[in-house]
């Protein structure tokens, strides 16, 4: 049993990176394992890391009754202190730049640095959204070129660029569907969503005013076409389907699903979160999709940034394109690009359902995504999908003998491999061991864990999405660690249940955090 603990750690060794039993340092730091206080504990009032060119001026008399009584109670730091604070904090983060980040359905691929360089060109980063149109022709052209690529790659008629993230894109697509049906005087109430859907799908449908009904899955992890057909009718506005789905499987009957939905007067929304698996290989338009959001921060490599910003353009079929939100980019006959805003909407885009946000969407993500697309080209993007799928299948087949892989027998997976902590083969994990222990053990192994407990349709899901930017050698290391962890969990290695031991923090008490939320820092109360 002990032999499977390849990390060599023993509880008596203590924590915080110390390999010396019971060692304590005076500073609380251990070599390069650095602790960092909050800025409110570091900074001093009146300290400032910005110098001003000009003398202070008194505010004008008319402002007197509006003035702030005291400046915000925020400490400042000088530049060296600021740089050190954030650099020390950064070292407590795992990141793609450090190693594989196989978070299923998140597509954590390498973020090319050319994208960052391009987005920072003053001609993109330092232009205002309401400059006169004639001064930003290059920006409109950039948006149009991205739109051209996205429509060509998906085989769709048009694209709404403005949605700010995937969930915002879902909303955009559903609002297009609702607007299209309202235009026909058809007030349908129900949106069908498969059981395996990402939680944003039902949340979005409910937000758009629909009643959500679930469609069951078949034993091989796909939408039950028979059950879907049976439920279609004049009250069903459409379906929201993720394809490839959240089990990492392609919906083989997607075209039949689309045809059935269309025949019943509904529309097909496809969640494009997993487009990376099929980009350059399959055009969703050929599968009968009416609307699909594309997470530029997934398939097209714009950085995830610790949780955004994202960008979620929505490609639309010809039937839905007239209802796309403002502003809307189109090419005129001569190739000149127009940005249709409220000013021209009445003439150019009269059926638009309106505006979803201020200004024109996530331009900083458009420039990065277009840079990525041009770097890859049609051939590179096809290779992206092929390598992403190859990597995922390699992980699937390299682990299916030690972890339960619920749909492995039904054929290849797409870009992500799904495992569960269910009993399997030689007795499965030991009593009391679960997906969480495998995930936390991976942290000690130096990897970011896979997505856990999603999708909900399997017990203790572990969804591994390696992406195409992992090398074979990198995957082999990940596989070796996961095999070691599976063996330890099967052998009942109790040390795994308290993992991680080598991270900046051990398991955190989430119950306490939620019971009495502390969401902002407050000065400690003095002794009185």
């Amino acid at each position, binding site marked *: 049993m002990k032999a499977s603990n390849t990390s060599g750690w023993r509880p008596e060794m203590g924590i915080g990176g110390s390999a010396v039993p019971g060692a304590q340092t005076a500073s609380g730091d251990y070599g390069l394992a650095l602790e960092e206080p909050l800025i409110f504990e570091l900074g001093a009032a009146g300290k400032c890391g910005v110098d001003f060119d000009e003398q202070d001026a008194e505010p004008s008399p008319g*402002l007197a009754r509006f003035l702030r009584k005291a400046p*915000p109670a925020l400490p*400042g730091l000088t530049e060296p202190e600021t740089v050190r604070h954030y650099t020390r904090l*950064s070292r407590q983060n*795992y990141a793609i730049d450090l190693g594989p980040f196989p978070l299923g359905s998140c597509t954590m691929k390498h973020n090319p640095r050319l994208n960052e360089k391009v987005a920072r060109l003053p001609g993109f980063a330092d232009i205002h959204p309401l400059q006169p149109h004639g*001064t930003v022709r290059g920006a409109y*052209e950039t948006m149009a070129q991205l739109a051209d690529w996205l429509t060509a790659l998906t085989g769709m008629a048009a694209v709404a660029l403005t949605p700010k993230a995937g969930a915002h894109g879902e909303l955009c697509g559903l609002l297009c569907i609702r607007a299209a049906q309202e235009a026909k005087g058809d007030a349908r109430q129900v949106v069908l969503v498969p059981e395996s859907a990402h939680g944003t799908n039902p949340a979005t449908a409910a937000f758009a005013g629909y009643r959500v009904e679930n469609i069951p899955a078949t034993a091989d992890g796909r939408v039950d076409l028979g059950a879907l057909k049976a439920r279609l009718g004049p009250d069903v506005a459409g379906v929201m389907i993720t394809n490839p789905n959240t089990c990492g499987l392609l919906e083989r009957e997607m075209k039949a699903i689309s045809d059935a939905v269309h025949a019943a007067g509904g529309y097909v929304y496809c969640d494009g979160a997993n487009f990376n698996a099929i980009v350059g290989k399959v055009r969703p338009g050929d599968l009968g999709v009416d609307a699909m959001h594309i997470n530029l921060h997934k398939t097209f490599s714009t950085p995830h940034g610790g949780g955004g910003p994202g960008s979620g353009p929505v490609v639309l079929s010809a039937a839905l394109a007239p209802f796309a939100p403002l502003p809307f980019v189109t090419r005129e006959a001569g190739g000149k690009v127009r940005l249709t805003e409220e000013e021209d909407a009445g003439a150019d885009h009269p059926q638009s359902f309106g505006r979803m946000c201020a200004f024109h969407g996530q331009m900083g993500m458009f420039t990065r995504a277009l840079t990525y697309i041009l770097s890859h080209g049609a051939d590179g993007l096809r290779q992206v999908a092929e390598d992403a799928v190859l990597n995922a299948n*390699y992980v699937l087949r390299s682990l299916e003998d030690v972890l339960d892989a619920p749909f492995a027998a039904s054929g290849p997976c797409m870009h992500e491999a799904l495992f569960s902590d269910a009993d399997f083969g030689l007795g499965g994990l030991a009593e009391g061991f679960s997906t969480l222990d495998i995930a936390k053990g991976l*942290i000690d192994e130096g990897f970011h864990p896979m997505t856990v407990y999603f999708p909900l349709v399997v017990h203790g899901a572990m969804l591994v999405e390696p992406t195409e930017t992992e090398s074979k050698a990198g995957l082999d290391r990940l596989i070796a660690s996961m095999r070691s962890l599976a063996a330890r969990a099967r052998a009942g290695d109790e040390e795994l249940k308290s993992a991680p031991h080598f991270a900046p923090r051990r398991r955190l008490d989430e119950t306490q955090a939620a019971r009495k939320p502390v969401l902002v*820092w407050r000065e400690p109360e003095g002794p009185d």
Partner: protein
Amino acid sequence: MRYLPLTPTDRTAMLAVIGAGSVDDLFADVPAEARLAGLVPGLPLHASEMAVERHMAGLAGRNLSAGSVPFFLGAGAYRHHIPASVDHLIQRGEFLTSYTPYQPEIAQGTLQVLFEFQTQVARLFGTDIANASMYDGSTACWEAIAMAGRVTRRKRAVLSAGLHPHYVATARTMARFTGDLLEFSTPKLEAAPGDAEVIAAIDDGTSCVVVQYPDILGRIPDLAAIADAAHAKGALLVAVVTEPVALGLIEAPGYLGADIVVGEGQSLGVGLNFGGPYLGLFGASEKFVRQMPGRLCGETVDADGKRGFVLTLSTREQHIRREKATSNICTNSGLCALAFSIHMTLLGGEGLARLARVNHARARQLAERLTQIPGLVLGSQCDTYVNEFTLILPRDAREVADALAAKGVLGGVPLGRLYPDAPHLHRGLLVAATETNTTEDIEAFAEALAGVLA
């Protein structure tokens, strides 16, 4: 292909492990009618870094960048100086290439930043708490209206005439599908911000009053009076701040009675970026915490009793609550929040106050200079603006802005661009000044404007 590590040898070895004859075997589930035989037609092939950079630089070169000319645009997006260390720090790979902190043990960097950010926003706004950010100011504004509806169980919101028209349009789009009722109007080109009209519109069915502060024309509404009127009818006051630098000078909305304060954080750390990505700020009274949208970071301890941070109260959110979630929002604006937080840390509260005074002084200098031009009138009260005001021109400001651009001056946002259907506003030009504007810029603007109007 420089981004794809697998070699042909790797691929062959991996296919052997998988037991597949070719990569296409892995795509066997694709319906035959949708299988592309070759490449997507009509698209170029991959290109070198040098070639792509050349192409993109060509596109960028067709735009007139703000820093290259005298520049005075605002209207919800402001050009401020961003200290060099901000952009350097947000490009550290540990911040740039990490994701939502689902595994807190290895995401304490991001989580502590979010906790600090929430505290900074709350103290800036004068609210008890703040969330970990939203997409942008306009979507945060709608989320506040929706939240006020949940808190008060009422469906009718009053939007002040001074609310940014894009924010109004965003809310109208959403309300059309949720069944919320919105009362809104276009502003008058008057010196006073129209507080009395807002107060008169509040009744027993009002969920909230939404007031921009300073408003779209640069005027400062009396939030305390509106808060009292709203509270007297059981409604909430939602304050909207599109220029957070202004709060270095004027009182925080939370201290004036606002129950929810939202805003656009782009001014600090983020930059113009042609409108996005930006940063939605969201603060509120603590008693409404369980009705708040968006991610929240909270303090806790780890198994050894060490302080640490986690995402918390996620039972409000879509991945747990699904169709019963407070919002469908999933991603926030993490990297922009980091940039905002770093910039705020460099400034500190007193530095922000100083920055705001410098902005105000620049705007006064600009207003004084521009009103020397014959025929120009200030649309705001003569000195009750922070760094943005409205100028009334003798003719449609859209033509004037285009003519100024032709002379190499980006001289403000014409109200006709924002309010195409409100002719009474079309002579208005919204002008902003910040610390980035020099005396030479102001002189160049004034001369160009005098020339255009002559």
